[in-house]
């Protein structure tokens, strides 16, 4: 079982790595990190801050774009090219296909983030001339960004399991935006009453909480991130990914592929 998932994951990884769009986006993110050095020079006293803020924002946004645009094609492309039938005609379960696809793209995103992080740290070294102890928190912010990618990838996969690539992209991107307002949504829900209160709370807890996974601003100010937040965010991301993947598997298992 695990061998089959690994095979699908490694094929997905290889396929994603061959995608030229991916390289363009990674190059653009690295360019943004480099541009941060220039932005710092036309301002006062924020060289280091702007490198971290702009660098990590570029890593996060470009990674989300990669996750969505590759994630939505994971299932539909296989159907379109009819390669899915070849895969499923072998002793591969549908859920293994979904999990393998997810692992492959997640691996691609981790490798991408690693290269983009090298760009950020390179720019940081250029402006500061040396690393500080507090720069270690940037790694925590990068870890949270990877958790964001995992959630987005799982959602893209969920939507691509039942809709067209275009709709799946719209759904995933909308959920990313709504998820960035997750804390506000809960705030609005607490102000309502009756049935609408329950509905609002239900919606607020159903959308992914991306705001808790964004600590870019605080690590830019060298503020530490608590171990409790790291543990809670890790647990939350894994549970949410599990939920989205289960949804994708449930839909894909029942989908008529004829």
């Amino acid at each position, binding site marked *: 079982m695990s061998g089959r998932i690994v095979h699908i994951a490694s094929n997905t990884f290889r396929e994603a790595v061959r995608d030229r769009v991916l390289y363009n986006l990674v190059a653009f993110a690295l360019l943004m990190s480099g541009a941060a050095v220039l*932005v710092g020079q*036309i*301002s*006062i*006293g*924020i060289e280091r*801050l*702007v490198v*971290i*803020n*702009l660098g990590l*924002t570029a890593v*996060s*946004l470009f990674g989300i774009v990669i996750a969505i645009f590759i994630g939505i094609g994971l299932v539909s492309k296989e159907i379109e090219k009819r390669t899915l039938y070849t895969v499923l005609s072998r002793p591969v379960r549908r859920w293994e296909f979904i999990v393998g696809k997810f692992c492959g793209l997640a691996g691609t995103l981790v490798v991408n983030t690693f290269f983009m992080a090298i760009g950020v740290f390179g720019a940081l070294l250029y402006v500061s001339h040396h690393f500080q102890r507090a720069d270690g928190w940037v790694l925590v912010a990068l870890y949270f960004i990877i958790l964001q990618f995992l959630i987005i990838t799982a959602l893209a996969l969920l939507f691509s399991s039942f809709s067209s690539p275009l709709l799946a992209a719209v759904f995933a991107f909308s959920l990313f*935006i709504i998820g*960035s*307002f997750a804390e*506000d949504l809960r705030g609005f829900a607490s102000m309502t009453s009756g049935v609408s209160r329950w509905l609002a709370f239900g919606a607020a807890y159903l959308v992914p909480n*991306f*705001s808790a996974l*964004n600590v*870019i*601003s*605080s690590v*830019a*100010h060298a*503020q530490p991130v608590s171990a409790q937040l790291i543990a809670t965010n890790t647990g939350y991301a894994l549970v949410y990914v599990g939920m989205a993947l289960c949804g994708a598997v449930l839909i894909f298992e029942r989908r008529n592929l004829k």
Partner: protein
Amino acid sequence: MKPSRTITIFAGLLLAGCLLASILLQRRLDQERSQATLEEILYVPSPKVLKRLSLGYDGLLADIYWTRAVQYFGGKHHQGAQEYKLLAPLLEITTELDPQLMVAYEFGANFLSAKPPNGAGDPQRAVELVEYGIRQNPNEWRLYYNLGFIYYMELHDYAGAADAFARGSKVPKAHPWLRIMAAQMAQHAGDAKMARMMWTATYESSTDPSIRANAATHLRALQVDEEVSALESIVAQYRQKAGHLPGGFPDLIAAGLLRGVPIDPLGHPYKLTPDGRVEVQSPDDLAFITKGTPPGYVPPKVPKFLPSD
């Protein structure tokens, strides 16, 4: 020539021509549209709305707004502007987006409080900005120092300044200067000694080159003001004794009132005019001086800082 080669050359030349034309037209558009229209607009004036629109990337947006505030102030200052309408809103948006951005409070309060053309001449707004910063960062002693500085230098509210320094002195790891300044304020409020102490503290406690240069320039200006006052009182003393004005510093030296020709902080000798006034040789190099300038002297729009500072 092959048709494909002809097309390549034609398309290449057309591309270059269009690029050149678009640059020229863009320049024309910049000239036609007034500068004020381009600069004096805040498309989204609400910091709260901007924070929401940032999708959590508020740190980056704060950096962008801070850079915009710096560029706006720098551009206006370079033109010798008397009005800085957007400065306060830009700083408020910046600090709301990133309440920990210390540099926006420290420099922003200076930009806001200084009299035009060196600043917006709005010390009350500067006080509000720094007070907001203190509420967000109660353990940053530098903010209390900045607050006291505005109260002292711009508002001449010595009680307010003493209170700010006293509050700041209670903050953990506060600079020892704060306690001394809080104590000295009651005794020496409004005199040059206190001002010198404050600029010295600014010079010694800052690592930022522009803040240090500004403090060094103010310290030189205080020294010139004091020396010119002292020299003019010596001239008055001579006139009282001799019944006429001295013809130059040698007369004062011969009368035993001076040991030698006095020199300003830049190393140039002071000038003694026939009507008994003392002037510096190059007032443009000694920004912020209030004494020792020729009658009708208009200082440069942008104060000159020495590279050695």
